[in-house]
C-alpha cells in the first residue's frame, strides 16, 4: 500500500538522480572530447547547453559562452532544474519526505552525496579536478542505485523509482540525440574528419560505446549509432530498453492500462523510425529533430497519465475500497 504523495516523491527523486548522473556524464565526455580534438574541429561548449535543454535559461544570464561558465551553469547553477547540485538537492528533498520507506543505508548514501556535492562544487568547474569530480558523482549515483536495488523491497515504491529513472533516461537520451546528432548530421556533407570521434562521444556519454562495439561490431557511424541508441533492446540507456523497463514496472502496479498504452504508443514511434531512413544514411537533421520532439511529446504524455492515474487521484471518482 503506497501513498500517492510518496509515490510521486519517489518518482521525482529517481528522475532527479538520473538527471544529475546524465548531466555529469555529458560534462565528463565533453571535457575529454574538448581536450582530444584540435581547435580546428570547432568543438565548443554551446552544444552542451542545448543537450540538457537549458540553453534558454543560460542565455538569459550570460552573453559569452565560456567553458567555465557553461560547466559552472550545468554543475552548480542554482536556479534551473538541470544543474547537478540542484538535482541532487531535489532528489534529497523528495526522498526526505519518503524516508519511512527508504532503506536506511540508501538514505545515508544520499545524505553523504548531498553534503559532498555542496562541499566540492568548486571542483566541478576547474578543469584539473573536473573529471575526478564527475567520476565521483557518477559513482555515488550508481552506488545509490545499487543499494536501492539490493536492499529495497521491489514493491510499488520501487516500481515508481524504476519508472522515474526509465523515463528520465529515455528523455536524456533523446535530448542528446536531438541536438548533438542533429548538428552533426547537418554537417554530413562537410566530410568532417572528426565525425566518428564526436559520435563516439555521444555513445560514451550514454555509456554505450563499449556495448556498441560488442553488439553492433561495425565501426561507429551516425546511422548505426542512432539505431543502437534508439532501438537496441538490451542497452540500458537506449530508448527502447527504457520503455521495456517502464512497462515492466507498470505491470507491477494496479490500474496501469492508460500508462501502458502511452508506453506502447512511444514504442510504435520507435518502430516506424527505421522506415524513415531507407537510404541507410539516417534521417536529415530536421527530420531527426522533429522525430525526437515527437518522442519527447510521448514521454510528456506518459508523465501526465502517471500523474492523473497515481498521484492526483480525485477521491470522488476513484473510490476503491480494498479489504485490508
Amino acid at each position, binding site marked *: *500500500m*503506497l*501513498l*500517492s*504523495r*510518496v*509515490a510521486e516523491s519517489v518518482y521525482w527523486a529517481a528522475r532527479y538522480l538520473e538527471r544529475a548522473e546524465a548531466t555529469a556524464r555529458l560534462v565528463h565526455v565533453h571535457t575529454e572530447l574538448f581536450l582530444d580534438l584540435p581547435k580546428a574541429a570547432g568543438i565548443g561548449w554551446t552544444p552542451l547547453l542545448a543537450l540538457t535543454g537549458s540553453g534558454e535559461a543560460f542565455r538569459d544570464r550570460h552573453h559569452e559562452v565560456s567553458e567555465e561558465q557553461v560547466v559552472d551553469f550545468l554543475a552548480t547553477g542554482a536556479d534551473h532544474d538541470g544543474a547537478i547540485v540542484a538535482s541532487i538537492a531535489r532528489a534529497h*528533498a523528495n526522498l*526526505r*519526505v519518503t*524516508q*519511512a*520507506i527508504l532503506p*536506511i543505508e540508501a*538514505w*545515508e548514501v544520499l*545524505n*553523504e552525496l548531498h*553534503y559532498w556535492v555542496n562541499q566540492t562544487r568548486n571542483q566541478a568547474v576547474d578543469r584539473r579536478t573536473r573529471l575526478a569530480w564527475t567520476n565521483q558523482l557518477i559513482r555515488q549515483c550508481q552506488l545509490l542505485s545499487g543499494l536501492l536495488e539490493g536492499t529495497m523491497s521491489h514493491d*510499488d515504491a520501487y516500481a*515508481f523509482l524504476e519508472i522515474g529513472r526509465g523515463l528520465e533516461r529515455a528523455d536524456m537520451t533523446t535530448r542528446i540525440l536531438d541536438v548533438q546528432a542533429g548538428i552533426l548530421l547537418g554537417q554530413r556533407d562537410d566530410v568532417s574528419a572528426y565525425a566518428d570521434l564526436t559520435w563516439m562521444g555521444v555513445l560514451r556519454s550514454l555509456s554505450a560505446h563499449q556495448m556498441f562495439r560488442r553488439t553492433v561490431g561495425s565501426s561507429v557511424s551516425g546511422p548505426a549509432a542512432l539505431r543502437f541508441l534508439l532501438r537496441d533492446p538490451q542497452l540500458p540507456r537506449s530508448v527502447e530498453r527504457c520503455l521495456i523497463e517502464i512497462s515492466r514496472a507498470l505491470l507491477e*502496479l*494496479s*490500474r496501469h492500462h492508460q500508462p501502458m498504452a502511452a508506453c506502447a504508443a512511444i514504442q510504435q514511434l520507435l518502430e516506424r523510425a527505421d522506415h524513415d531512413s531507407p537510404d541507410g544514411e539516417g534521417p536529415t537533421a530536421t527530420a531527426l529533430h522533429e522525430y525526437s520532439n515527437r518522442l519527447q511529446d510521448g514521454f510528456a504524455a506518459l508523465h501526465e497519465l502517471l500523474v492523473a492515474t*497515481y498521484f492526483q*487521484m480525485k*477521491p470522488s471518482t*476513484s*473510490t*476503491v*475500497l*480494498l479489504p*485490508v
Partner: protein
Amino acid sequence: MWDDYQSPGCWDELLVDGEPRDACDGVVRYLMSLGDELGARQEAAELAIRSMGITFTVYSEATNIDRAWPFDVIPRVISTQEWERISRGLVQRLTALNLFVDDLYGAGKVVADGVLPAEVLATSVNYRPECEGVRPPQGVWAHICGSDLVRDADGTMYVLEDNLRVPSGVSYMLENRQVTKRVFADLFRDLDIHPVDSYPNKLAGLLAALSPRPGDSPVIAVLTPGVYNSAYFEHASLAQQMGAHLVEGKDLVVDGDDCVYLRTVDGLVRVDVIYRRVDDLFLDPEVFRADSTLGVRGLMRAWRAGNVALANAPGVGVADDKVVYSYVPALIRYYLDEDPLIPNVPTLLCADDSDRARVLSHLDEMVVKPADGSGGYGVFVGSTATADMKDDVRRRVEANPRSYIAQPIIRLSTAPTLCDGRIAPRHLDLRPFILSGEQPYVTQGGLTRVALNEGSLVVNSSQGGGSKDTWVIDPSVSAPPRHPHEGHSQS
C-alpha cells in the same frame, strides 16, 4: 582534562568531589583513560550524526531548515535502582492524569468534589468542549507522554512539566544510542547498559491495540504537519521503525461513511489508528481552526463515531496546562489514594493574589512560564534577566495572571560536557517517555537535554540546547571495563 572539573555548587550526575558516583564508576574511569582521544570520539559522533541524517529544524530559518542534531558524547548515567523508583512514579502520575482527563470530559466529578476549582477549567485554553462525552478505548487519552524531570542541588528529582499533547524527542533518544554504540562500541561490551530500542515496538503494539476493527492487522498512520515541522525527522523515523504510514493531512480523506481513508496508488484504503503529531487546533478545519491545511476535514466526526483511534486523544492538553500541573499531586491522591512518588516543583499561581504578590516581589529568584506554553518559549528566568525583561514580565503577568505560573529557580544538576576541547559542567534535564496502554511502559532513561552555553538553564534544542545519551546501569552487575587500548587476552 578531568582534574579541574568542578560543578558550580549543583548536583553533578557523574562526579562527586572528583570521584565517580556509584553507577558511573566504570564509565568515568573509561572516559578518563581515553584522555585526548575523547575529542576524536566526539568528532566520530558528529560524523555519524551527519551521515545518519539526524537533524532537527529551526522554525525561523527559511532557507537552511535542517541542522545537525547537537550531541555531546559524554553520557549521562542513572542507576537501575533509582530508575526503577522513577518509573513507578511516572506510571502513577500518568494513571492519575488519564483518569483525570476521562473524568473531565465525562462525569466531571473532580470539579464537583472541589479538588479542581471550576475556574481553572473555565479558563483553560486547552479544554475542548468538542470532546465532552467521548469515551476513547480503555478510557486512555494520553497514550504517549513525555514528562520533564529535573534534579535540584540536594539530589531530589522533580517533575517539571508533563507534555501530553505531541511530546517529541523520543527518536533522538533512540538515535543517541545508535551513535554511542558506534562511538563506544568497546564499552557496550563490558557495561550492563539497559537497551532503549524496544520503544518503537511497544508504541506500535499500543497503537495497534486501539484499532476499532480488532482482529485485523490494523492500518496505522503517523500524521505529521510536514517536512517543515521541527520534529519531522522524528515523525519519519518513528513511522519507519513501526512500519506505519507517514502521512500529511492531504493524504487522508474522511468519506460519507465517517471513516478515514488514505489516498494510495491503489485507491482509498481505510485507516484504523492515527498517531497524530498535529496540534488539536489544526486537526480538523470542520471543528477547530477553519484555515488549517494540516488537518483532515471530518476527522473529529470519525473519531467521535469510534471509526478511528487518535493518539493522543484531542483535548488531552487540558492536563499539561501548567496551572493544572500544580494540582497533579492532589489529583494523584484523589484518584489513586496514594502519595505522589515524584514531587512537583513548588508552583505559584499568578492568578492567586497572594502568590502573585510573592512572585512579583521575588522576581530574581523565579522562573515565570506561560501556563499553556511549551518548547521553552516565553520562559523568564529571574537570575539572568535584565531590568527591562523584569518590567516586561511584570506587565504581562499583571495583565493576564491566569496565563502565568512561577517556580523557584531550580539549580539544575550538571554533567561533564565536552566544550571546545575541554570538559566543563553543563546543566541538564531528562525527558522520559511513558506509554499508557494495556501494560504501562517507561523508557529506560529517556532523552537527556543539556544547555550547551555556560551557566544556561535552557535545554531546548531550539534555543542552544544539545543532548546526551542516557545510560541506565546496574552498578552491582557491571564488570569494570577494560582499558580501551588493551587488546583481548591472547590465551
